[in-house]
């Protein structure tokens, strides 16, 4: 302890105090403050960057989820549309088929009807032709028959006889 007092030098204490306190204030102004400030702002920047990166990641995830949702919806819609189209196609085909059948039936019926009328007309014409031919033939026959008296008579008789049979 005594040695400590003996070793104590006031001059050294004075210089140490003056220089050290001056050093604290000088370094505070010219070194520690700028250094710590830039370190702080750098750390702040890093923190902010990390935060915004995290945020961007979250946004990205949200966006992806949205996309997925949209895609899913679109797919569903497409399927529904396809299904509808398919149904419509089947219905159309069906309709066309029935229409065609009806039309064909109608055509066939019309054809049959016209055939019938044609046939009737033909038959009628034939009848008239046959009648006129018959009359002509009959005329010729009559004329020939009537050229001979006997024969005239016979004919009248047979005709009469036929007439009664009728």
């Amino acid at each position, binding site marked *: 302890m005594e040695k400590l007092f003996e*070793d104590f030098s006031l001059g050294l204490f004075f210089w140490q105090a003056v220089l050290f306190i001056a050093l604290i204030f000088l370094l505070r102004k010219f070194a520690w403050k700028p250094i710590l400030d830039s370190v702080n702002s750098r750390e702040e920047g890093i923190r902010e960057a990390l935060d915004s990166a995290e945020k961007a990641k979250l946004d990205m995830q949200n966006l992806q989820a949205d996309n997925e949702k949209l895609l899913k919806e679109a797919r569903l819609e497409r399927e529904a549309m396809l299904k509808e189209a398919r149904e419509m196609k089947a219905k159309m085909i069906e309709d066309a088929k029935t229409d065609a059948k009806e039309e064909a039936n109608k055509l066939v019926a019309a054809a049959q009807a016209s055939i019938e009328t044609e046939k009737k007309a033909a038959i009628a014409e034939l009848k008239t032709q046959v009648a006129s031919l018959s009359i002509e033939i009959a005329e010729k026959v009559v004329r020939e028959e009537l050229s001979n008296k006997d024969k005239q008579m016979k004919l009248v008789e047979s005709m009469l006889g036929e007439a009664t049979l009728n």
Partner: protein
Amino acid sequence: MRRKITVKTITLLLLLVSFVTYGQEEHGHSDSGSDRKSEVKAYIQHHLKDSYDFNLFSWTSDSGEEKHFGFPLPVILWDGGLKVFSSSKFHHGESVAEVDGNYYKVYHSKIYKTDAEGTIKYDEEHHATNEKPLDFSITKNVLMIMMVFAIMFFMFSRMAKSYKKNGGLPKGTGRFLEPIVLYVRDEIARPNIGEKHYKRYMSYLLTVFFFVWIVNLFGLTPIGMNVTNNIAVTLCLALITYLITTFSGNKNYWKHIFWMPGVPVPMKIILAPIELLGTIIKPFALMIRLYANITAGHVVLMSIIGMVFLFQNWLGSGLSFMLAFVLAILELLVAALQAYIFTVLSALYFGMAVEEHDDH
């Protein structure tokens, strides 16, 4: 594992050294041996003391004349007026310096006022009783403090500028220093003082950490500087810590000193003086710790280096050399460790002073 090996090696070396020392004494070429021993002892004593000139090394020439290599430093005295003169007037403490009709002499590294012959009067305990003028000399240690001042200012202001030039990033030495600055902030100041108040103390903590560390490191160089083994220097540092602690103490701090909450009244009365004494003992311990560690380190290291010259044989000198080498590395660690401890404890005391006890 590695540590065990180191401890074993040191133990082994110490054992061997003690044997060799034993053998040495038995052989006993006592004359030159004790001469050399006292020379080493004197050298170590001299090294631990401050001096008025910057002496790098001395030798005795063939003609028996003592030669010194170095340069003198200014002596500044206050003795009824300011007296400034070069320390070369003392001729390395060998002669009396005459300034303005007053005579001064260096005795045991202190300047005393004497008569023209340089007579030193003693009391019964062989202490000099001569008048001591107020001494503000730029001694070797003061010069060293100034050098460290300049180095630190240069180093850290450059580092601060490199941030500005480089867009917020350090450059050069700043890259090495930044982690240490951040270490002081994040591992010393923040946990001990608390997030709320630590910024106010950063300047002091950083300055004291780097100052003590750099000064300790210079102490290990062969220039023979040894600032932190002066009690005046460590007292100054500890005093600043004490003053900052005392002046930043909040209501809570003083309440815990004078009227400890949560204990019975008689205990409060007993505790108050103890706590009050504790506030002084804490910085006192800071002062002694730094002083004693550095002084002890220097004494041990120099003694072992001195042993190299005492043994004068290959085995003893070789072992001493190796031991000195290991110790020098240990001292490198101690240099940083003491700076760390001083800073941590200062931060801890500041933390106590500003602590807010919400949980009580």
